[in-house]
């Protein structure tokens, strides 16, 4: 297919699953949920969109999926404008929304088959069966949804989103309120989808999950994208390291002579924590240990700890307040 304009050429860029340009959303009441958002989601990646409550994550997802009208800007899915070429765009997309919204009186089989039909796909009982088996729903296929537990309902919603074999899958807080077993099962399914080349966009409050699973991370706050980075690179760039010294004798306060170091006391004065930049040319550890010895402070043990994505996320959001 030929593209006739720079915008179309950009939208159809190879390797891009979702392209967002200059996106803004102001609701009728005047609340601006998104401001000038630019974002590219690469094909086949697992992208974690992180942000505090009310940051604009769900609005962004809703616009891409066609549930909310944008006020400004453009969104393309696999090169198709989500407004002008909505059929082609939406055929590619599956959505698991945050809220547990299901047809209470329908059976699992019927509701998943309904979703497939809604997306214009021919019946495929073999595929639906495999899907239900993968999500441990096969035994419940003839059960009415209202008879299922919350975790099972969440599985049904995932099955519905996957029923039309989407190439792009949005998971909006998929693990909220579900038990450990389901979370493990669900991540297995997500891994399987990624291996098959499905692009996955995930929002979650369980940031350790994003840290483990995501190829890239985007942080959104107050309707603006604050950063987009490879997860490993983000951890390397913004991650801090801490040296934790378990003291032989507890301290009441950090001695004045050591004030130039980034030292804090923890565990009721039994631990001395030194925070440093692991990527820096000089960590300052050698000098610190020398000064500790000179001050007569001894320790029984020591360990180091890398800051988590959650800590990086919290710092980023705090710094933007």
């Amino acid at each position, binding site marked *: 297919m030929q593209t006739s304009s720079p915008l179309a050429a950009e939208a159809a860029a190879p390797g891009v699953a979702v392209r967002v340009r200059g996106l803004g959303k102001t*609701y*009728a009441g005047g609340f601006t949920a998104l401001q000038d958002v630019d974002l590219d989601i690469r094909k086949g990646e697992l992208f974690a969109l992180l942000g505090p409550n009310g940051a604009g994550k769900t609005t962004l997802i809703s616009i891409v*999926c*066609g*549930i*909310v*009208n944008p006020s400004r800007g453009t969104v393309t899915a696999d090169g198709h404008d989500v407004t002008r070429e*909505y*059929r*082609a*765009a*939406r*055929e590619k*997309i599956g*959505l698991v*929304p945050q*809220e547990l*919204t*299901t*047809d*209470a*009186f*329908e059976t699992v089989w*019927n509701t998943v088959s*309904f*979703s*497939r*039909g*809604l*997306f*214009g*796909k*021919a019946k495929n009982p073999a595929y639906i069966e495999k899907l239900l088996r993968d999500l441990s729903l096969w035994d419940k296929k003839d059960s009415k949804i209202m008879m299922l537990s919350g975790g099972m309902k969440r599985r049904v919603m995932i099955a*519905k989103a996957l029923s039309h074999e989407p190439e792009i899958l949005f998971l909006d807080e998929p693990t909220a309120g579900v038990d450990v077993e389901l979370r493990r099962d669900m991540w297995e399914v997500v891994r399987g989808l990624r291996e098959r080349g499905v692009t996955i966009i995930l929002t979650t409050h369980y940031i350790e999950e994003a840290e483990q699973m995501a190829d890239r991370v985007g942080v959104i706050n107050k309707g603006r994208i604050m950063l987009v980075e490879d997860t490993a690179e983000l951890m390397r760039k913004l991650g801090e390291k801490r040296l934790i010294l378990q003291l032989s004798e507890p301290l009441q306060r950090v001695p004045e002579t050591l004030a130039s170091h980034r030292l804090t006391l923890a565990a009721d004065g039994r631990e001395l924590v030194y925070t440093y930049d692991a990527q820096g040319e000089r960590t300052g550890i050698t000098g610190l240990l020398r000064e500790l010895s000179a001050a007569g402070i001894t320790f029984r043990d020591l360990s180091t700890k890398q800051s988590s994505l959650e800590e990086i996320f919290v710092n980023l959001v705090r710094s933007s307040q």
Partner: protein
Amino acid sequence: MNLRAIAAIYRFEMARTRRTLLQSIVAPVISTSLYFVVFGSAIGSRITEVDGVSYGAFIVPGLIMLNLLTQSVSNASFGIYFPKFTGTIYEILSAPVSYLEIVLSYAGAAATKSIMLGIIILATAALFVPLRIEHPLWMLLFMFLTAATFSLLGFIIGIWADNFEKLQLVPLLIVTPLTFLGGSFYSIHMLPPLWQKVTLFNPVVYLVSGFRWSFYGLADVSVGLSLGMIVLFLAICLATIAWIFRTGYRLRT
């Protein structure tokens, strides 16, 4: 056109009827039978004939129209309101489905249900009174157009309503009174001259009159005018729905 999506929504809505058979079919049939018992014996003994048609037979088109109107409105309004209420509307809005396809499937299912009900009531009426249908094709056309138009009206109400009270407001406070006052149980020629003129502002008069004409060749207003009015209501509903979808009113924020 996404025919599979239309079929999926249509089947889903029809399945809801099967699940609620008592409420959807049995209840209206019983209440219609009660009308025959009450109106047929209580009033029918005083008004034996209207323009040469026995009173019991005279009210059959009006009773069918009453059910057609109220059921079309309530089926269609509930059909689209319920997904809004439960939140499952997200799936319809995020699917590759056009507005036309959404309306066709929801209003089509509602119209199908009310036409089925109309035919069942017709068959029930035949057990109570001698019936004749002089213009069966016109009867079917009137039935179809009325069911389609009021299903579209129901769809509009379902979109507009943001609580269950509003959902019931228009059917209970507007549609049912207009139907009772629209000549369902009497000929408007039985009214005093002033009320004969006032009642012409009631759109249901034209629907009942045209429908009754298809049975007995009797009409309060000309058949052409009845047909014209139905088509006008249809056009108004279609224009309103087009506006709803163009603006995203109460669907897409």
